Structure formats: structure tokens, C-alpha cells
């Protein structure tokens, strides 16, 4: 009879790679979705002009939106994979908090958003806060 034993935890580099995969896919998904919504335009205005169906049609006919959702789905599966190998108390706070910082960087580079000192400070404070809260 074999005695069940807990699976060994992956090493530092494997854990880092798994968390990095979640963060990268999540950031790509958020940035693509944000770019899609900017290209569609103000949804409140579209709904006022064309109704709810018009707003839904505007979103669903934007290819960038589907690219974003695909990356968000990839991030979800990367999270499931990581949870299969690592502790929730490591994966959840690390990925949730670091994604805020990578999104600020990606927003500045790819979306050309004005990430001023106020937004940097806010992103870092929320990042540390989410980590403390979820840890």
C-alpha cells in the first residue's frame, strides 16, 4: 500500500514563470479590451443613440474586443494551472497586485495614457494594499 504524500512545490523559477504567465496574459487582455472600448467610443452615448442592442452590436463587431477576451480567458486558465501547483495564498495576491503595476506600464506604453505621478502612486499603493489584504 502506498501512502499518499503532498506533491512537492515547484522551485522558485517555475513558480515565477507561472505567476508571470498569469500577469502577462491578464495585462494583454486588459490592454486589448481597453483599446477595443476606446475604438468603439462612449457606450453611454451609443446606447442613447442606438439603444442597448446597438451598444451590444458595437462591442461584438470589434475584433480587438475578442482578442482581449481571448487573453483574459488565457489568464484564467493560467491561473487555474498555477493553482494546481502553487498555494492560493501566494498566487492570488501576487498576480492581483502585480497586474496593477504592469497595467500602468502597459497603459502608458501601448495606450499612450497619461500615467502621471498621481496614478503611479495610486497603482503602487493599491498594489501593496491588495497584497496585504489577500495575503
Amino acid at each position, binding site marked *: 500500500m502506498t501512502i499518499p504524500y503532498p506533491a512537492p512545490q515547484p522551485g522558485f523559477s517555475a513558480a515565477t514563470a507561472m505567476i508571470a504567465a498569469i500577469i502577462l496574459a491578464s495585462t494583454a487582455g486588459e490592454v486589448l479590451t481597453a483599446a477595443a472600448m476606446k475604438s468603439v467610443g*462612449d457606450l453611454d452615448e451609443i446606447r442613447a443613440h442606438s439603444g442597448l442592442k446597438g451598444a451590444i452590436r458595437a462591442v461584438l463587431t470589434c475584433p480587438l474586443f475578442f482578442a482581449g477576451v481571448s487573453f483574459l480567458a488565457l489568464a484564467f486558465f493560467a491561473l487555474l494551472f498555477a493553482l494546481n501547483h502553487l498555494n492560493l495564498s501566494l498566487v492570488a495576491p501576487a498576480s492581483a497586485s502585480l497586474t496593477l503595476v504592469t*497595467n500602468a506600464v502597459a497603459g502608458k506604453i501601448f495606450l499612450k495614457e497619461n500615467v502621471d505621478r*498621481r496614478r503611479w502612486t495610486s497603482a503602487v499603493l493599491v498594489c501593496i494594499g491588495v*497584497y*496585504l489584504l489577500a495575503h
Partner: protein
Amino acid sequence: MSHARLSPRQYLILGLVSLCAPLGDTCLSRGMTGLPEITLAHPFTLIAAVFTPWIAAGIALLICFFASYLTALSWADLTFVLPATAFGNVIVALLARFWLHEPISLERWAGIVLITVGVGLVAQGPSLTERPVAHAPSLAETADMGKEQA
């Protein structure tokens, strides 16, 4: 529409983003823990689970979250929306403390304070990066032009 300051309706949308995601996750968690173990041998029990009240409520809340999130991204920057809606984490922690009477450690109180300060900071700034000029007309503007021509 001015994008420097948000209207009450836009604050409401951000509030929905903040609230619906954590509440939806909580409903899903509550619903799934109440179910018997689901195995790959009986995958259809997962479909039946969708129609249980807690999980159905969770899915409805998450659909509401995604719709509000997309709406917010259509008139505000990503780097504004993400920190601003992180306040949902604080709401859930406070609900856990005062409604479910769960203890909150000093570390978590520190997290709540930092998130609150971060959200306050970002909410006081502009929600959208001002672009200089000439951009391709949005769908709403195109619809306007169509009406004017008619």
C-alpha cells in the same frame, strides 16, 4: 461630454464594477461549496449547478460586472478604472468583518487603508487622457452624421 470630472451616473458605473465582481465571486464560492463534489466522470452536474440560486446569482453579478467594466473603459483610462475599482476589495473585507464577524488582522487593516488612500488619490485626478485632435469618428458620432444627412 466632459471627461475631466465624472458624472454621478459614471460614479455609479464604477461602483457597480467595484461591487459586482467581489459579490459575484462570493456567490459562486458559496454556491460551489454547498454542492456535492463534482468529478470529471459526471460533467453534467456542473451544468445543473448553473441553475442553483447562488451560482445563478453569481453569474448574473459577473455579467453585470463585465458590462459595467466595458462601459467604464469606453469613457475612462484603464489606469484610472483599475485602481478606482479596487475599492471592492475593501468593501468585501468590511462586509466580512461587520456582517460575518470574521477577524481582520492588522496587516489587512493596513491593506484597507492603503487601497482607500490609493483610490482617493486616483479619483481626484482626470479620468481620461486628453487627446489633441482629429480622431476617427466613433460609432455614436457616425450615427449623428447619418441623422444629419437624413
